């Protein structure tokens, strides 16, 4: 399995908010890597930092941001925009962020291809759009080409956005909460579609979500993010079988799972909320919510290896979790 995207030591600041604080992650070809955490943990900012799409005023630093062997840190805006939509594409929670309300689906889809592949004929671009709309499960794609985004349901718009992201056969797809706004039935359809496309096209996918159900079902590898840091990273099976970080364990215990927690029993919960971290903050950012917090958690917190490809960021010894019951 070869690495397509490698990010190391990523930091992003917005004035007095340290949104991402030294995050590292690797996305391999043909793999889905899920970035999971509650809102405000820095997932979207991480994705936007990789794509070079951060808001003005954001300050990005990193030890490495390497895509297909190429260092993205030094790239000019023009070179980045040539990559975006071509070799790496992004889809968002709200499809209207990438769809323009005043152009038809067809003209937007063909425009992407013709911008990145000058010389493509219109007819060829239309063929490709029709093929991809069909591929994402849209019936009567020819008719859809002439429609405007507002004439489609949320689920259809999300599929159009995926089709559009695939126009130039990207190697990396970053999907930021692509199904959060959709019904569970449509969500299942879209996630199946992404898995199928990955199998057929060998796509690498960085999927951002706050839903551990989605993570369990689609991810090969998981990174759990908290307050701008990756606090645990593991192959999916290992993460669910032996979660180590107290935050990961807390998150898992909060999710109602049919048959696991009795109706009259309370769900597990984490007290408090995700904090906003100022630059220069030291120690574990989870310590005001953690039942295991001790004095040493306020200073340097080590990253510990627990198994093949499985690490967590905590002062607890790697085997602490084994002594505790797995969260209910």
């Amino acid at each position: 399995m070869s690495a397509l995207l490698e990010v190391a030591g990523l930091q992003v600041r917005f004035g007095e908010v340290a949104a991402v604080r030294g995050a590292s992650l690797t996305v391999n070809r043909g793999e889905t890597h899920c970035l999971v955490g509650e809102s405000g943990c820095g997932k979207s900012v991480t994705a936007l930092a990789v794509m070079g799409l951060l808001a003005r005023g954001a300050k990005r630093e990193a030890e490495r941001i390497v895509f297909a062997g190429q260092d993205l840190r030094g790239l000019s805006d023009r070179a980045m925009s040539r990559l975006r939509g071509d070799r790496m594409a992004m889809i968002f929670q709200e499809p209207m962020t990438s769809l323009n309300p005043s152009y038809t689906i067809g003209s937007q889809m063909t425009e992407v291809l013709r911008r990145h592949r000058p010389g493509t004929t219109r007819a060829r671009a239309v063929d490709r759009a029709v093929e991809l709309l069909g591929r994402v499960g849209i019936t009567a794609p020819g008719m859809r080409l002439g429609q405007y985004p507002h004439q489609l349901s949320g689920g259809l718009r999300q599929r159009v956005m995926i089709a559009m992201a695939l126009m130039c056969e990207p190697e990396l797809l970053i999907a930021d909460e692509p199904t959060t706004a959709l019904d569970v039935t449509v969500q299942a359809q879209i996630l199946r579609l992404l898995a199928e496309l990955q199998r057929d096209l060998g796509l690498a996918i960085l999927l951002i979500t706050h839903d551990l159900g989605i993570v369990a079902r689609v991810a090969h590898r998981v990174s759990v993010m908290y307050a701008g840091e990756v606090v645990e990273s593991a192959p999916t099976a290992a993460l669910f079988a032996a979660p180590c970080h107290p935050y990961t364990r807390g998150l898992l215990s909060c999710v109602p799972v049919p048959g696991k927690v009795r109706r009259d029993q309370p769900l597990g919960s984490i007290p408090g909320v995700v904090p906003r971290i100022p630059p220069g903050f030291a120690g574990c950012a989870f310590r005001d919510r953690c039942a295991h917090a001790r004095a040493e958690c306020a200073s340097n917190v080590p990253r510990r290896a627990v198994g093949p490809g499985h690490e967590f960021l905590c002062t607890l010894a790697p085997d602490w979790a084994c002594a505790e019951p797995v969260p209910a």
Partner: protein
Amino acid sequence: MNVAAAPAAHPAIEVRDLRRVFRVRQGLFAPPREVVAVDGVSFRVPAGSVLGVVGESGCGKSTLARLILGLLPPTAGEVLVDGRRLAEMDRRARARLIQPVFQDPFASLNPRRRVRDIVAMPLVAQGDIPREEIGRRVAEMLDRVGLSREQGDRFPAQLSGGQRQRVAIARALVLRPRVVVCDEPTSALDVSVQAQILNLLAELRRDLGLTYLFISHNLAVVEHVATEVAVMYLGRIVERAEAEALFAAPRHPYTRALLASVLTPEPGLGVPDVGLGDVMPDPANIPPGCRFHPRCPLAFARCPVEAPIPIATATGIVECHLEDRAAAAQPAAA
């Protein structure tokens, strides 16, 4: 059904053949379209139980909630709360019986008032409660939902989403109503906060003997909180059953599809094929016969021409022609 609770004379909520049609104008000359949001819904919710209502976006869940709260008049049918006709009660009497908790606590809380005053509002509106008593009951309620004295002096914008939802819950409960209608009360919250709020709602129901109508698109949440579940599709309840029965053995093809699409955090299972196709339901254009037939994987000749009627099951109803067939195939029973 919660028979352990004191056997009340009336169901906490009863709706009879409830219907609500919206007329939506589509420009100056086009004739207005009729959107049938709730289309002949009947059920009873026994006191002390929790009726979960599930279904896809636009199927009429919030409209049903607003009809039951008396925030919207029905086009036809009636709502009884604690045995009394909603339409015949004045606002103050209604407020003492039934209260809402909505999804977005920010939109439903007045941003210019302090938490303490927001929670006091329903008591003040009653018009006959002495000030000292209001102060005492508000303090008690804030404490009950886990808000500090100091938080009571803040404005909604100074609170987190979870704390705002606690304020909304305190406001809903301060009059000690019998029934609380929760419309997606945790959908805007993070999972850790969702768990805090669900635990609080469960505790309050137990301690105060409340009845909930609990709307959510999250089936795992509904399974955790509900004692009975109603599944809505394009304005109708197509299946209703005790929660355990419904989740263990869903009968309506739509219920089965909904349950199949729940992604539990169990690795290795992949994403299921829900098998519904990509025709989305449109309440302005309800299909003839069984309204689910364009998406139903089991539809047969009778489905597009004849609407199924509710058929009684052990713990509720199901509305599907397949049940007829199943019944016909069985020897007649008592």
